[in-house]
């Protein structure tokens, strides 16, 4: 377990996309894709970020790599001496030296590789950019990286179209490793892969982490994948983190009603343990038009008047366990996860 030094600290991050209408591009509202997210990732720690489609997971990751300039908040990156820079606010040209510390692995193995470049060019490009090496040395390093992700170095002159989805994902991983980053953001790295190939990639990511002690921010909508790879999990709902805890406890003892519901909605892999899902009513809230008070209140079976008015804050409910609920730690959430009798 990690009582380690923090590597990245996200504080009150907000990313609101303006909704524009008409020819003059008048702003008529905002999509609150990320609305007050705070999260710390320690050195060598693997943190999972889970939530349903559209809850803002990718937006968080894109803010970290500054694909978007956040609306508000801080993203502090600590160096080895504990000095921090705020990636959310420094000007674009000054970002260059910090970019190499944070790399990204994408969901779609097809769109994330330039089809017009060979593996040598794709994996060599980051090292070229930072003038780390060139010529023969570069080639050797590309070969080494290919080997470490389980591809054959002699395929270096091939183009991505020569590879299957799983192999392309390995290429993307090799590219991310090229700069020896400290943090790797994995945005649903296995969701687009064939089921029989997912385990290969998950194992690869786990082995690499064990060997090089990378920190991962591992984004997924599949709780079992997160359970397999992460030490700590943050659950997101409509732009907000609603619960964080160690993986071991979050699924056995959730403290937020949404986490409990999410967990019970996932079908078990056991035909004798048939559980009639107790589905959540209604749909995920629209981030352009969020409910007042607790964003979860329209679907929460514990909601009270207070929930409709006051926005709950993140509160500690146990050691290393936080939940964003007025009644965090006081609710009996076991009903959500009780298995029904065998069908």
């Amino acid at each position: 377990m990690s009582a380690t030094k923090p590597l990245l600290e996200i504080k009150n991050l907000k990313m609101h996309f303006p909704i524009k209408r008409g020819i003059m591009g008048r702003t008529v509202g905002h999509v609150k894709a990320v609305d007050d997210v705070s999260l710390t990732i320690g050195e060598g720690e693997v943190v999972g970020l889970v939530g349903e489609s559209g809850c803002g997971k990718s937006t968080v990751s894109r803010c970290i790599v500054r694909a978007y300039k956040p609306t508000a908040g801080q993203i502090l990156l600590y160096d080895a001496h504990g000095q921090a820079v705020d990636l959310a606010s420094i000007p674009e040209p000054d970002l260059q030296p910090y970019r190499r510390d944070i790399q990204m692995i994408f969901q779609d193995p097809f769109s994330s590789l330039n089809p017009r470049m060979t593996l040598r060019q794709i994996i060599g490009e980051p090292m070229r950019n930072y003038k780390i090496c060139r010529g023969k040395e570069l080639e050797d390093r590309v070969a080494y990286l290919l080997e470490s992700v389980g591809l054959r170095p002699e395929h270096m002159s091939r183009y991505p179209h020569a590879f299957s989805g799983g192999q392309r994902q390995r290429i993307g991983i090799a590219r991310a490793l090229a700069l020896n980053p400290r943090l790797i953001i994995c945005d649903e790295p296995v969701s687009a892969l064939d089921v029989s190939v997912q385990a290969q990639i998950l194992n690869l990511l786990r082995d690499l982490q064990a060997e090089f002690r990378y920190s991962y921010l591992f984004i997924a909508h599949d709780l079992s994948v997160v359970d397999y790879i992460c030490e700590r999990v943050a659950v997101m709902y409509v732009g907000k983190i609603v619960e964080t805890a160690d993986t071991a406890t979050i699924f056995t003892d959730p403290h937020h009603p949404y986490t409990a519901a999410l967990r019970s909605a996932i079908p078990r892999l056991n035909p004798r343990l048939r559980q009639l899902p107790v589905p959540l009513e209604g749909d995920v809230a629209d981030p352009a038009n969020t409910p007042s008070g607790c964003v979860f209140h329209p679907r929460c079976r514990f909601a009270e008047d207070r929930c409709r008015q006051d926005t709950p804050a993140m509160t500690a409910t146990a050691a290393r366990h936080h939940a964003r609920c007025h009644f965090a730690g006081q609710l009996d959430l076991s009903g959500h996860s009780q298995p029904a009798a065998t069908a």
Partner: protein
Amino acid sequence: MEPLLEVKHLKVHFATDEGLIEAVRDVSFEIKRGETVAIVGESGCGKSVMARAILRIVPSPGRIVEGRVNFHRGGRNIDLTALEEKGPEIRAIRGADIAMIFQEPMATFSPVHTIGNQINEAIILHQGIDQAGATAQTLDILNRVGMPRPSRIIHRYPHQLSGGMLQRAMIAMALSCRPQLLIADEPTTALDVTTQAQILRLLFDLQRELNMAILFITHDLSVVSQFADRVEVMYLGEVVESTDVITLFEDPKHPYTKALLNSIPQTGAGRGQRLQSIAGAIPNPLHRPSGCLFHPRCDSFQPGICDQVSPKEINIDSDHRARCILYDQQYSDKVSSAAFDR
């Protein structure tokens, strides 16, 4: 019990510019009344093509080249593959006796008509009742699929509904004529887990109520374990294992099934145990491996046999079949016993 639908040695080929794709190679199975049969397999293994072949809506250039699909209706036994593709008989069966729901609900509905109109139309077409009667039925069925405020929803257009609501509307349309068989092609794959849970619950309840059979197509084994009575595991156009759901999870025989089950992470298993992965990738449908289609990735691969002979479907017991030479008497003396342990 008499089967409702029997698929026998079905073969569907696509003659494309690049070559022949044997999308469905040799698929046989049956569905009894009120039963849920799951077809599980990875992307591209031919699940959708097979389902469409049953309803005779294979997209061009696909063609059913062999096999029968026997549908038992009112004591009669109709071979659906023998019917004329666009003829009145198959159209009468489609939608009324056998209904289908798709992964992409948006593609099922026309964007220019309201939800209510489209469901009404289906009811009028198959039941020949008047507009008022149809509307009453539409409201009733929308109510039954748990649609909030049906009387308002019927005036909405498809793009005004969320994914989950649209999926409910599609189920409502499919069930409007009380089909005996519902083919559900990955009905929850595009949905979030909480919405998926809603839809699965709904299908489960409706099935009980209407006593209808469901052919449930998915690539998600956990959904299978919660939902199916029987399972057909497909790989590259073939059914490789076929049995009841308990046996499949507790005593799988085919190396592909075993490997697949071991490669799926499970909640609660934690970080301790390492996943067993399957080597390689799904082959390109244009370049099928020789012999057993799974042999380049199989842990129990028997050199000299698996890469040369196409395994037959072997009866493990009365209700359990696997397409693997390990269980073929013919080769029993040549197979090393270690192969079974993996």
